[in-house]
């Protein structure tokens, strides 16, 4: 905490003046790489498709609340954000210019700087024509009179003016510029992934001030009590070696059992359910082409475990094996091989991932894959927090992570207890 405040003060002194001097200026409306889908030829259907792919409704809708009326809470290390109402009640007085300023420049009417929980750092890539199409579609969402809630942020993050500094450091505005080295499909994919789909908002690491800074640190992001694995790392969520068909199937169905096996849970299940399953297949194919082309990176090295004597491991493995036999083997198979009804644990990326929070949360709280049109009756994982202790969960995860060719570090009961905080998603 002290470090963060000191950081802020130093940055303030050094950068405030510079930020103002070098305030980026662009009047570039840009050109979006066109969709291969004919369904997006008119602006209204294009706007709707972009609003869906951006999953605006997901963040701007409280559970069970009216769509786009806001009020969903987003818990972060800086405090809790509440999404605003973007029905006509909330933004009915906005002009297309105002909407562009929010998406492209990150401020609301009156020059109010927006927090980057609203991912304008990605949306700045969206072309003016596409932003206008999104705005035209949102104009059709009827007014729902729900008042906005103030964010509940810790000091100094509740000082909105500090965002000017943050922006000077971490925000470069500018629409997507096509890369002539690549074809139209790749460029379409890059435009969507970097822009409206804002994949990096979760799948890339953020620094202490909440800015996506993955160039120095190729890693996924710890968000919303889950780890969003890196899209560059083959042992995390990298799909460089996958077929386009498998990638598209995972994004549409939420589950794939092809040449590769993949399941979506937690926040990604929501993205599939609310957004990706409704996205044009042509656009998903473009996304797949782009994701396959991402330069591969190595996973972050894992720190060795402190406080676990090597002699303790065989005992933990033994306990874990028994817990596995009693609770897991029925579905996942005696050797973690599984089938179509449950993921294989042998060579599983989620099982072997570090940080291991996703695997821990799966054992604690289970969950169903999203019930999509292509997979309307998904299988689910039972929650084990009612029946297994933190010690038992740690030992079974240690067993799974150390068996059948898996070779990942042990999990301690403390890790399991640390996974019990934060909202379920």
């Amino acid at each position, binding site marked *: 905490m002290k470090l963060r405040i000191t950081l802020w003060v130093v940055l303030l002194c050094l950068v405030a003046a510079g930020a103002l001097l070098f305030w980026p200026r662009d009047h570039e409306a840009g050109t979006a790489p066109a969709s291969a889908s004919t369904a997006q030829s008119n602006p209204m259907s294009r706007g709707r498709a972009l609003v869906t792919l951006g999953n605006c409704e997901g963040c701007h809708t*409280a*559970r*069970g*609340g009216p769509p786009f009326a806001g009020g969903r809470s987003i818990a972060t290390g800086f405090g809790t954000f509440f999404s605003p109402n973007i029905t006509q009640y909330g933004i009915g007085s906005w002009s297309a210019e105002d909407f562009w300023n929010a998406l492209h420049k990150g401020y609301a009417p009156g020059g109010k700087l927006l927090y980057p929980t609203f991912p304008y750092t990605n949306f700045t890539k969206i072309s003016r024509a596409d932003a206008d199409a999104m705005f035209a579609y949102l104009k059709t969402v009827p007014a729902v009179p729900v008042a906005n809630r103030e964010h509940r942020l810790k000091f100094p993050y509740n000082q909105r003016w500090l965002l000017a500094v943050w922006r000077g450091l971490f925000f470069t505005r500018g629409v997507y510029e096509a890369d002539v080295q690549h074809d139209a499909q790749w460029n379409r994919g890059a435009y969507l992934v970097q822009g409206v789909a804002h994949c990096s908002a979760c799948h890339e690491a953020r620094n202490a001030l909440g800015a996506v800074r993955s160039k120095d640190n190729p890693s996924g992001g710890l968000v919303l009590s889950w780890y969003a694995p890196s899209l560059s790392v083959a042992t995390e969520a990298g799909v460089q070696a996958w077929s386009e068909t498998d990638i598209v199937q995972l994004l549409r169905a939420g589950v794939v059992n092809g040449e590769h096996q993949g399941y979506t849970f937690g926040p990604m*299940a*929501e993205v599939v*359910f609310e957004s990706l399953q409704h996205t044009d297949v042509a656009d998903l194919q473009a996304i797949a082409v782009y994701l396959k082309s991402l330069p591969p990176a190595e996973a972050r090295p894992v720190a060795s475990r402190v406080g676990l004597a090597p002699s303790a491991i065989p005992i933990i493995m033994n306990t874990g094996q028994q817990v596995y036999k009693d609770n897991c083997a029925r*579905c996942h*198979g005696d050797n973690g*091989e*599984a*089938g*179509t*009804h449950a993921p294989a644990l042998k060579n599983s990326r989620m099982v072997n991932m570090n940080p291991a929070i996703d695997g821990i949360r799966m054992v604690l*709280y*289970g*969950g*169903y894959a*999203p*019930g999509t049109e292509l997979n*309307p*009756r*998904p*299988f*689910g*994982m*039972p*929650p*084990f927090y*009612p*029946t297994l202790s933190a010690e038992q969960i740690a030992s079974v995860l240690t067993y799974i992570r150390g068996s059948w060719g898996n070779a990942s570090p042990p999990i301690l009961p403390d890790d399991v207890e640390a996974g019990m905080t934060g*909202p*379920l*998603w």
Partner: protein
Amino acid sequence: MIAMRKILGLCLLVPAFSLHAADLDTVEQRALPCLPCHGKEGRAGPDGYYPRIAGKPAKYLLNQLVNFRDGRRYFPMMNYLAERQPDAYLAELAEYFSSQQLPYDSVSSEGVPEATLARGKVLAKDGDKSTDLPACSACHGDNLLGALPAVPGLLGVSRSYLDAQLAAWRTGLRHAKAPDCMATIAKKLTPADIEAVTGWLATQAVPEGAGPQKSVPSPQPVECGSIS
């Protein structure tokens, strides 16, 4: 070498697939995530709180799954499991648990004062005309095991669960489709009456083979949005 590995890999994979895939493509397999809390086949929970769901009317179970999914009921684990599932799938799971006909556990009224039990019985069977409070049996059936298609039974669930539900209705944490009759009724109950009625309900034995009535008793004493 690589080809050999691939063949070896296939040999290892095929038996695993043929062993499991077909016989596990069932609704029972899909219902497994419900069992750690609701017990084997939905019979009852391990810690006495989670309600029995076996044999409850299917429409009631579906209404609750939809309520959890859409935020009318609040329990994080249930909200999390039901979200992002289509109605048809939730209905299939509801049908499955509804069709489980299993004996009820035995109960004992030991420790509940006589006067509490007596008051509870009166409330459950006759209501309280002085406060316009209908009897539980007026909607939940003469045997209090519910009424088809959507009124739940009140027996065979723990007192702590019943207490929590009435409290949640009083405080607005639990909702049903409007008009929300149980919210109205729960707000009329005094804390002493809640203690009495849940104390009596939770200690009633259920005869073997008994189940919900075929239809809701008529006339209904209050208007309900989720009774059919």
